[in-house]
């Protein structure tokens, strides 16, 4: 079938994005699961923490990922609540990306404006809250 050939290769190329991302993520997961970020010297300290002394919203994500990959959900939540809660959202987004790439269908729906705006607000509040010493036991890494 001559007409379907360029279309099929375009689909194949579209699939490279989500599948490539899965391969890179899986490789990173293997490293993070086996090389413990709690041991000093395994990974360099994040530059933004070293320079500013404040926890950014992403601080603790590496240790949370290590804990989660070793089955320690409580430990992961203690390191970065927001990063753990974001995992289902990121996974769902990846599945939607894979589906769009596989079927060739364009996006048909966009969330209301307060979804990204709320995400931004949540990140700002989380960043401030986890740097407040009284809240640190729950929110700081």
């Amino acid at each position, binding site marked *: 079938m001559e007409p379907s050939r360029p*279309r099929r290769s375009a689909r194949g190329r579209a699939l490279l994005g989500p599948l490539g991302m899965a391969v890179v993520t899986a490789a990173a997961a293997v490293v993070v699961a086996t090389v413990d970020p*709690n041991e*000093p*010297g395994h990974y*360099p*300290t994040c*530059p*933004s*923490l*070293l320079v500013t002394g404040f926890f*950014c*919203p*992403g601080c603790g*994500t590496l240790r949370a990922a290590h804990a989660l990959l070793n089955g320690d959900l409580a430990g992961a939540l203690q390191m970065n609540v927001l990063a753990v809660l*974001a995992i289902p*959202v*990121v996974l*769902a*987004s990846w599945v*939607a990306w894979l*589906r*769009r790439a596989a*079927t*060739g*269908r*364009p*996006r*048909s*729906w*966009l*969330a*209301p*404006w307060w*979804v*990204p*705006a709320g*995400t*931004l607000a949540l*990140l700002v509040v989380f960043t401030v809250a986890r740097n407040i010493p009284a809240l640190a036991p729950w929110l700081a*890494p």
Partner: protein
Amino acid sequence: MSTPNGPQDPYQPSGENPYGQQPPVYGQQPGYPAAPPPGYGYGTPQGAPPPNYLVWSIITILLCTIPGIVAIVFSTQVNSKWGTGDAAGAYDASKKAKTWALVGTILGVVGLVAWIGLTAAGVFASTATYNWNS
């Protein structure tokens, strides 16, 4: 983010006219006698909405914070402009969100590689063993 199947699905397997069918216009209220033309006024525009790159922007924050935050601001604009019928503005904001997420990702990856390299070379020997519990 999901693409539900249904009679309103703009996709057609023939591929001839993927944007021909109209999605429901959510902005249509009893007070409005007719749907406004696409791109002007209120109501969701016709056709495929632009990507807002929200998840990429959030991941960018882990690599390089400031461009990631700028990208999220543009992500918000994609959704708000699309929701008010400004399709051109939404596509413009989508392009800017992509640019900022890309800038953050490139800066973050380059910075990360340089940082690991410098640390391995012992440039930060006194600070590499940061005590997390202090």
